[in-house]
Every structure is written in structure tokens, then in C-alpha cells.
């Protein structure tokens, strides 16, 4: 309980900090980057449940992002839908595509599942190019703005922040619950998960659909932020980028992948000379993390403290309380009513 509340305290402090960014940011560009981090994080927060908690290596989420973006640009731009409604539809479409991708592929073992998701993202890009009348083909589509007060850069930033907060809160709720334990059991010990009655395929599918919804919403916001989208925007490298954010952040953490997303998005932009070396930079950082801190940067502080002042684990003798156990077992339902 204490741990739980401290998690939410961290979230609260984080949000306060994010709220203050427009006050001390130097220019519009920095706000643009902060907004981009928020939009990427919406996608990564969903993907993190799939990769970091359930252990399913999806490298195809750029396809879902692309679907959300194009759905938004077509609905809100071409067809003149209300942008909020268009964003919601984009999310649902992302979820639906997640379902259609997950149904055949989530039964595949790790590496093959990764390949299936990669193939999916490549197919999406080809379809976007082929369906020129709908998507503008190689020329692309304009991504409309949201209405006031979210049409300005700062207004839109706060809008993204609010949505990102909701997704962060939702994923925190999931990982601290029965569902979180079930997902982690799929990642760490499938046989234990089965023995405890966890429906492995169904649970994977549900969390994958959720990540599709997040990617769809993220795509809608992305189209609006970029103001113009083309197939070149949704290159496969972007998919790897999301994946790397989670690996660098560390599995089984929410703060870590968030820091990963923020650092990987911001550093190449802020440190201008690095911008051209973007991919080199990701590669190098990934190598360092995998070799030096495999737990991820989310656990960096924890690890340093442990190095400097190791906390020794004492062996606690077991002192069973059998009368308590007898009482607990006596409350088991099957004696009264049989099976449910």
C-alpha cells in the first residue's frame, strides 16, 4: 500500500514538473519536442505493457501509429469530423487493428511474433502508398489542428499532457493489480501462469488491443502535431525507436520507459551535432544499457545506491502460524457451496 501511494506521488510530482515546462521553455521548438515526447509516451505506455510486462516483443507499433494518424487526417481533415471524435475513432481503429494482428500472431513464440509485427508495419506502409485516393499516396495528407484552446502550441501541449496522464495512470493501475501480476507471470513463467489459471492467449490479446488503442490515439495527436503526414514519416526505424525506449528504460517499470522515451526523443534534438548521428546514438546507448545496466535506466539510481551502500538481506527464520492457517483455510468456499 505504501509502495502504491509512493508510485502515485511520483506521478503527481512528474505531472507538476511537466506542467511547468511551458513557463521556462526557451522557444516554441522546445515545446514542440515536449509535446512529441508526450505523444510518443502515449504509444509507449501501451506498448510497455506488451513488451515490458507481458514479454511479447512487438516491433510493429509504427503500423498502428500510422493507422491512427491517417484515420485522424482523413476523418478530421478530409471528411470534416469533429477532431475529438476523430481521435476517439482513431484509437478504436488502432485497437481493432491490434485485435486483427494479435489474433493470428500472439500464439507464435517470441521471435516469430516479432517478425509478424514487423511484417504488419511494412504492409501498412505499402497499403498507405497504394491507396493514394484515400491517403494522398506519397504526397501525404494534412493533419488538422484541434479547436481552441488547444490550437496553440502551448494549449496543445497541455492537451497531450492530460491524455498522457490518463494513460500513465491507467497503466499504473494495471501493473499494480491482479492483471499486472498475471501479465508478469506470462513473461516470467508461463507454466506458473497456466497452473494459476491465467488464460495466456486471452490476456496477451487484451493487453495488445489496449496497446493498439493507445497507438491509435497517439497517432491522431501525432498527425495534428506534425500538421502534415506522409508514408516517410512512419519508417520502420520509428518502431525500433519505441522498442528501444522500453529496453533502455527496463522491463517491468513504467518510470524507466518514460525516461527512455524522453531522453531518446530530446537528446538528439537538443544536442544539435548529434542529430545527424541519431541512429548511431540510439545504437550506442542501447549497447551501453544492455551491457552495463541491463535492468534499464529506470533502475539506475536504485543500482547505484545498492553499489555504494549494499543492503544485506538477512535470513529470516520461518515461524508458521498454523492456527491462523487453519482458520484461513477453513474460510475456503468450496466446503459450503462447491464449485462456482
Amino acid at each position: 500500500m505504501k509502495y502504491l501511494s509512493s508510485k502515485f506521488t511520483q506521478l503527481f510530482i512528474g505531472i507538476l514538473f511537466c506542467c511547468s515546462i511551458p513557463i521556462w521553455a526557451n522557444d516554441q521548438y522546445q515545446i514542440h519536442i515536449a509535446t512529441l515526447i508526450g505523444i510518443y509516451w502515449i504509444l509507449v505506455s501501451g506498448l510497455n505493457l506488451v513488451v515490458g510486462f507481458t514479454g511479447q516483443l512487438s516491433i510493429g507499433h509504427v503500423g498502428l501509429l500510422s493507422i491512427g494518424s491517417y484515420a485522424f487526417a482523413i476523418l478530421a481533415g478530409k471528411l470534416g469530423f469533429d477532431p475529438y471524435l476523430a481521435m476517439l475513432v482513431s484509437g478504436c481503429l488502432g485497437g481493432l487493428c491490434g485485435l486483427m494482428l494479435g489474433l493470428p500472431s500472439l500464439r507464435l513464440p517470441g521471435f516469430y511474433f516479432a517478425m509478424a509485427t514487423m511484417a504488419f508495419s511494412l504492409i501498412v506502409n505499402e497499403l498507405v502508398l497504394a491507396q493514394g485516393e484515400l491517403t494522398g499516396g506519397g504526397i501525404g495528407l494534412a493533419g488538422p489542428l484541434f479547436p481552441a484552446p488547444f490550437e496553440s502550441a502551448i494549449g496543445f501541449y497541455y492537451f497531450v499532457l492530460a491524455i498522457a496522464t490518463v494513460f500513465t495512470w491507467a497503466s499504473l493501475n494495471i501493473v499494480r493489480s491482479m492483471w499486472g501480476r498475471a501479465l508478469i507471470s506470462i513473461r516470467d513463467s508461463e507454466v506458473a501462469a497456466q497452473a494459476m489459471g491465467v488464460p495466456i492467449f486471452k490476456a496477451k490479446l487484451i493487453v495488445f488491443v489496449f496497446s493498439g488503442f493507445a497507438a491509435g490515439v497517439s497517432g491522431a495527436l501525432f498527425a495534428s502535431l506534425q500538421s502534415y503526414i506522409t508514408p516517410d514519416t512512419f519508417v520502420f526505424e520509428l518502431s525500433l525507436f519505441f522498442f528501444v525506449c522500453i529496453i533502455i528504460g527496463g522491463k517491468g517499470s513504467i518510470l524507466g520507459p518514460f525516461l527512455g522515451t524522453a531522453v531518446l526523443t530530446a537528446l538528439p534534438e537538443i544536442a544539435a551535432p548529434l542529430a545527424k548521428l541519431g541512429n548511431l546514438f540510439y545504437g550506442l546507448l542501447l549497447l551501453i544499457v544492455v551491457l552495463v545496466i541491463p535492468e534499464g535506466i529506470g533502475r539506475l539510481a536504485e543500482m547505484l545506491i545498492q553499489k555504494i551502500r549494499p543492503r544485506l538481506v538477512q535470513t529470516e527464520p520461518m515461524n508458521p502460524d498454523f492456527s491462523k492457517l487453519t482458520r484461513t483455510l477453513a474460510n475456503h468456499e468450496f466446503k459450503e457451496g462447491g464449485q462456482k
Partner: protein
Amino acid sequence: MSTTPSSFEWEISARDISKKFGGLTALDSVSLSLRAGEVHGLIGPNGSGKTTMLNLLCGFYAPSSGQILMNSQDLTSLTIQERAFLGLGRTFQKPRLLPTLSALDNALLGAWIQTQSGFLATAFSLPFVRKEEEKLAELAKETLQGVGLGSVLNRPANLLDHGQQRFLEIARALVMKPKFLLLDEPAGGLTGNEILLLRDLIKVIKASGIGVLLVEHHTDFVFRICDRVTTFNVGKMIKHGTPNEVRTDAEVIRVYLGA
């Protein structure tokens, strides 16, 4: 040796079970039954098919022939998960825990089959979800305190010592509120003192009306706490009976116990 008749409510019977892996016959037409409130020991040399039998009972393997019944319900074609819902809990020869999660979270995983909360309700942390979570956490905590892990509730499972990990697995299975508990070599690697605790623990579990299958190599331990004992050798049953009958059987002594 039997307990009161009223606790014979539930029974699992595996009938004429055979299991072939390719050309290898791991089990050859063996039968075994578990009853509520009874400890059934399963012994035999390495490779005699004890763990195979346990895996068949809880659905990790499908039998090549034969039938597994729980009272009148046929379990043979049910999945592992469906059998868990019907009340089969198990532990593993090598503890299968979630290494980074606390002992409490590990035990709570056993409560999955009692969880009603859906994914979306959980994402929005609706009040009934929180209430359910608290109720299940209380059950898990009581169970952990009961088996002797009350002082390490928040310690990650990978920092527990071996004996504690074994007891945590048993606690996790008990949180499932099982009708039957299948223990795969629970005494393996335990210290003498821990084995005594395990013996008392199994007695408490038995007294609560749960049927226990005990696959074990420590024959002293088995003969001391079991109501019935079955001995396997190379996939065949060679003796079934009370501990005394099995202990003094010439064939069992020849292939397993030694003179």
C-alpha cells in the same frame, strides 16, 4: 487410516492412464486416486513416471489413453486453466516464482481464479476493483503468515532462500483455495528443520479437507505422513497400499528402498 466419511466429498481418479513420448512409454496403464482430506504419497526411482503422473493430473500433458475424473466430471480433455478453476493447485520441482515481485505479489497470483475485475475496470481503478484487491491481499497475507513467511511479505522472491521459495509456492497454491494440492518433491533441498515444518504444514492442509498428492524421494517423510502410498517403477505401478504395506513389500524394497 481414513478420516471422517463426510470429508470424502471430492475425489479425483485417474484410470488406466498411459503416456507415451514418441516410442518411450512413460506410464503404462496406471491408476491413482486422490481423496479430500487425505495425503497420497507417490514414490519410485528416478524416471519411474511420478512427475509425469502429476503433470497428467493437472493437464500439462494429455494422456495417450485413460481417463481422469473429478467426482463425475471428466477432466481428461480440460485445459490446465480449467482444472485450476475446478480446484487443482500444484507446486513445481524447481520453484517457479516471479523473481522480481514480492512474496505477497507472488502469493496473490494464486488469487487470479477468484478475480472478477476486468481489464478496463482495473485500468480505471473502479472502487469495486480496489475492494476486491484488498480482500485478496488480506487472504494472501494471512496465508503467508500461516505458512511462516509473515516476516518477508515484501521481499522479492529471488532474495528468498530456497526453503522460503518452496513454502511460498505452497502458499500461492493455497491462495487458489484448491480442493486438491499436488506437491512435486516439496522436501527437495530443505533443511532438517524445514522438513519438520513442511510435515506439520501438510498435516494442517490435510486437516482442512484438501486432498494432497505428495511426489517425494524422502521415503521416511512419505511413510510418516501419508494415508496411502503408491509406488511406481519404470512407468508401472508395483504396489499401492498403506505406508506399512508398502514399506514391507518385497518388490518395493528390491527396486527402490533397498535392503
